[in-house]
């Protein structure tokens, strides 16, 4: 079926380009016009504020004397207000403890290559952050067991998915420190779903298929579950697998992808594509579903709240119409992958390990501020750190109308899990993620290039080869 989306939205090319630029800037970490000088609740014109009402910064003396330099590399946050807070926050800590701190932000896509280059060269930053598990770098990074245990001693038990995304049970090593994560709810346009007869959006995968197809055929607005070689498609594919009772590996890191459950999930995705989507989902990059939602072109996407936060500024009409749903109930489970899983690593070449670890504890101590300044994008790995989180999502301080729009996130931990579920995130799952084997598997079946059975079998062959490779290095468990 072909149609002209402008017939339904009235969106002009100029408007689209404006939204595209703003979404792109937001996704790339630009300022995207966010003004942090207005008051809470401000939307149109000045954007959500992160200044007024922000938690105070706490400080505790380091356990060891610090000096020298500390070089930090991290992503340009999807919510630019976070970085506006983070950089002076780091400098303030550096002045307090006598450490000269340098902070470098780069786009998220460049970080893995940068880490590889620095580790190969044996020099570079002392502390590096990424938004997905960095288990593949385990042999070249400092064990973070002491800092993780210290954090748990101070603030209680670490959230399990964060532990599974930073700890390798086969080597008993914390290859990363994980202070937080980001939920990945469904984002849907209420007006479209209301017209279709489901005003509160989908709660099951069956509803998503039935009503999403109805919206596409009757209202001409497609759905946006990616099957491309990018991060969001990887996350969406895993959510579907888990909801159907399938997974790449079991809890003991044995490959179990080739199952009846996986084939059912692939068949479902094929049906969803045929009923509710266009070929565009095969061509997406990470920001595409954000851009589509902000431009009012998609009825439902799986994403964090960053697209919504950007649309509050770029397209308030769409923002007002955007609502959130929890993980969709499938035949076996109700689970999505975390949208982001923060991993901080200290490479072996780091010159100031003590300062890096002390900074991480200071940053974690102030995670309430990190959560606030990310406009509720970042969630903590230690629940006690952000006691007001439930209140904030129930009554959004950043201008949502209605103010309880984000309330669905209050129990996000119950329907979110780590990449590698039900096992740990390990280098094999990381490589499978990097090579986008799961989205390609779904896409091959959806496009009719292969039967679901063949697509799953081919994916299994690639996955088995990857597991065998990493097992030889002793970094992945299991034996099949």
């Amino acid at each position, binding site marked *: 079926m072909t149609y002209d989306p402008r017939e339904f939205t009235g969106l002009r090319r100029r408007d689209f380009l404006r939204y595209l630029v703003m979404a792109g800037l937001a996704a790339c970490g630009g300022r995207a016009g966010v003004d942090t000088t207005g008051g809470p609740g401000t939307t149109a014109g000045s954007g959500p504020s992160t200044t007024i009402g922000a938690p105070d910064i706490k400080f505790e003396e380091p356990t060891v004397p610090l000096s020298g330099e500390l070089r930090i590399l991290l992503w340009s946050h999807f919510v630019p207000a976070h970085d506006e807070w983070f950089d002076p926050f780091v400098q303030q800590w550096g002045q307090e403890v006598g450490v000269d701190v340098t902070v470098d932000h780069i786009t998220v896509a460049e970080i893995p290559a940068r880490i590889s280059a620095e580790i190969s060269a044996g020099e570079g930053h002392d502390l590096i952050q990424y938004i997905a598990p960095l288990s593949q*770098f385990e042999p070249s990074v400092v064990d973070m067991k002491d800092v993780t245990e210290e954090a748990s001693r101070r603030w209680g038990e670490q959230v399990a998915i964060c532990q599974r995304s930073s700890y390798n049970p086969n080597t008993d090593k914390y290859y990363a420190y994980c202070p937080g994560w980001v939920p990945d709810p469904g984002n849907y346009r209420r007006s479209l779903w209301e017209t279709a007869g489901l005003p509160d959006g989908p709660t099951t995968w069956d509803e998503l298929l039935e009503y999403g197809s109805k919206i596409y055929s009757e209202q001409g607005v497609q759905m946006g579950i990616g099957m491309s070689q990018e991060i969001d498609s990887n996350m969406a594919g895993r959510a579907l697998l888990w909801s159907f009772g399938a997974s790449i590996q079991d809890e003991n890191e044995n490959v179990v992808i080739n199952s009846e459950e996986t084939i059912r999930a692939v068949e479902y995705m094929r049906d969803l594509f045929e009923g509710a989507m266009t070929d565009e989902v095969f061509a997406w990059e990470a920001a595409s579903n954000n851009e589509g939602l902000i431009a009012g072109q998609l009825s439902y996407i799986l994403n964090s709240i960053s697209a919504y936060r950007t649309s509050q500024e770029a397209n308030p009409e769409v923002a007002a119409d955007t609502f959130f749903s929890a993980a969709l109930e499938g035949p076996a489970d109700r689970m999505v992958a975390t949208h982001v899983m923060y991993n901080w690593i200290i490479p072996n070449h780091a010159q100031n390990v003590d300062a890096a670890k002390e900074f991480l504890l200071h940053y974690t101590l102030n995670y309430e501020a990190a959560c606030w300044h990310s406009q509720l994008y970042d969630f903590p790995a230690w629940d006690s750190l952000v006691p007001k989180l439930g209140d904030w999502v129930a009554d959004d301080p950043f201008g949502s109308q209605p103010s309880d729009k984000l309330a669905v996130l209050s129990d996000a931990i119950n329907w979110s899990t780590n990449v590698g579920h039900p096992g740990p995130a390990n280098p094999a799952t*990381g490589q499978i993620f990097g090579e986008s084997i799961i989205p390609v598997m779904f896409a091959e079946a959806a496009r009719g290039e292969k039967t679901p059975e063949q697509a799953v079998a081919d994916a299994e062959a690639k996955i088995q080869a990857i597991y065998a490779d990493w097992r030889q290095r002793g970094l992945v468990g299991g034996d099949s």
Partner: protein
Amino acid sequence: MSDEALAAGVASRRPRRSLLDSERLLAVGGLTPAVVYIVALVGFPFVLAVLMAFSDVTVGDPSLDFVGLETLRQVLEDPVFWRALRNTLFFTVVSNALVVILATALALILTKDFKFKWLIRLLVLLPWTTPVSLATISWLWTLDTIFSPIDWVLRQLGLLEGNMIWLGQPRLALASVIIVHTWRIVPLAAVIVMAGMLAIPTEIRDASDIDGAGFWRRTFEIEIPLMAPIIGVAVLFGVILSVTDMTVVHVLTRGGPTNYTQVLASWAFYKGIEGGDLAQGAGTALFLLPVLVAVAALILRFARRTEVL
């Protein structure tokens, strides 16, 4: 004064040859920067890539443990590698065929006299001067799934209903990659061909005019054969740029849909850096070498035979 005495007097007044007059030193001094550059930025990475391809190195473990041909066996067993290899050859052949045709046509036009020729020449060169990543991002927007201006024009002409979705369908995605490669290489090739065209002695054109040769005959039987070696040089540059480029695929499609547009350079990056298996990434990239060596040898031999280089 005898001739000998005069000669001796002249010799004694001639300044002694200093080090600065040494041709040997000049040669060494002149060549050293180029040699250092090539050894440091081409030779060393090349040797490192070969070593990596026979090791089990990963992004997290840079130690080079020799594993023989195991890594290359894994590379060759991967169906995506073979698709990437086929695509690399396909993109290169098709885009460079288009480059030769378009660059020659463009050179023929740009050597004629007409108003605002300088402006047209400037515009033709612009794609070459734009950084490839920025240019490809502009193409990414041009080929947008919903708001592509190409689609808009086609819709206005009544040739299209809906959208083409250029990058979401394998054939169109392949075509898009070829178009961008061609667009970016044509200016350089056109300048090279134009230089060759201007080097053709005017006597030859005059003679052909006197003999009554028309435009087509003069172009295809005189000018193009004379320019064949210089066109070969343009093709050499074009092939090297096409084979080694990963930016166009990375920005436009990331190898999709379903790895349909994957090329060796992009697959080496995804396998080695994003996947973490540096050895397989290096092993994949290594297969660029025979392709490049064969093409370079063929074209240089052709050029030498025709006495251009």
